[in-house]
């Protein structure tokens, strides 16, 4: 396993340490993870899978909790989708 993982967040190439979460990768690009029901920007709150504020789209799958998902090579992530 290489020491870094390369993935794409909102079209930007990003590198994170192996074992990092998708949340860590998204944070390098934007703090707008999702939009609330009223349209306000939202970002991770709990860091441990309970608040669901970190939901993003990962490889075409919507509503994935970024803090619970390990970043993997070549992943395509869309935040604030």
């Amino acid at each position: 396993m290489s020491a870094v993982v390369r993935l794409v967040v909102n079209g930007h190439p990003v590198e994170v340490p192996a074992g990092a979460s998708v949340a860590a990768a998204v944070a390098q690009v934007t703090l707008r993870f999702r939009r609330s029901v009223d349209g306000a920007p939202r970002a991770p709150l709990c860091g441990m899978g309970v608040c669901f504020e970190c939901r993003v789209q990962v490889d075409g799958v919507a509503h994935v909790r970024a803090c619970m998902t390990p970043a993997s090579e070549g992943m395509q992530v869309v935040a604030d989708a």
Partner: protein
Amino acid sequence: MREHYDVLVVGAGPAGLAAAQAAASRGARVGLLDAQPRAGGQVWRHDVRLPAPRAARRAIDKLQGVEVLVRHSVVAAEPTALRVETPQDSRLLSFGALVLATGARELLLPFPGWTLPGVTGAGGLQALAKQGWPVAGKRVVIAGSGPLLLAAADTLRKHGAQVLGIFEQASADAVRSFAWQLRQWPARAWQAAGLRLRLAGVPYRFGSFVREAVGDDAVRGVEIETPRGVQHVECDLLAAGYGLVPNTELASLLGCALDDADTHPRVQVDSLLRTSVANVHAAGESCGIGGLAVARIEGAMAGLMAIGDTAAASAWMPQRDRERRFDALLARHFTLDPRLRTLADDQTPVCRCEDVRLGALAGFGDARAAKLATRCGMGACQGRICGAALAELGRFPRGAARPPVFPARLATLAGLATLPSDAYRGS
């Protein structure tokens, strides 16, 4: 697919790891489940940049004869089986005995600006930093209550953050008295002293709390109420947590009796960690907030009970009782200032999933009526954040958990015996 285990342990934190090891050491088939991608739970969460503490390495790497099932979320329960969802599929795992080691989460309270990106829990930002979240060079304000604020500050500094200050809501007298009483637990006292030494350059202020976070699309600063008036601090991140509350949703679904059910419920156990349901045991912070030492002891006890070795489990009782006395010390000294309950105004969203503002809840006396009328607590977190917050604010008692305990895919839900009509929404 239905797989059978003699013992299933839910939660791979210190309690669950100890339970699984104890049960497996006598030859039982043991499955250790956790929704997280790695074992370790909260305190032993894997850090992408820093080495793990020795005790964590020993507990995780030396685990023998245990099937560790990570990224397995328990979403529902039947009397002798758990419905589990993985990123790929859903499975039904049946068990002879069950150990609930589901741990705790942070108590997060609403205040104006708490929904701004960059505002997190205190343990929350610590967890994110361990996952590789970029904090190096960031100006961080840490606020809230309890010893976790210091642990979070320490981790964040090791990751290169500039911690501007730790603002503890408890009074200086309360914190001093806590530190003095801590001498009854020498290991904890040493740990605390080490932390304070490492954080020597960081201001630690008492009787102080964040009134408001300000910013447009992210937090830019905070207004802090201190005994000497309001202070404005510019920052890049605010990490605010008000202590911990046990995760009891799964226990509640299994029908286990809970203590303090109206406020911050804990799983009710007897002196040998049996819940009110036969063959279901509970250990660690799901039974009350007491920290790492008690989690490890109770884990070992519950694992032994799960394989029927009551004698070996009983041998741990004096040590367990001694460690559990720490709970009361913690609760007494870090009691929340009533002013924290008045920070949110009518415009402050309390239910972050559905954007329900505090003002919209006026006139409702219970969570169920408010939920039906306003959708408060109906979103993806299923009331984990707003339910605990509203109970703390004295608004409504907590509602009971319903299946699934986490939002699940339709294919998973199709396997459930009973299903409320709104189960899928928000997942």
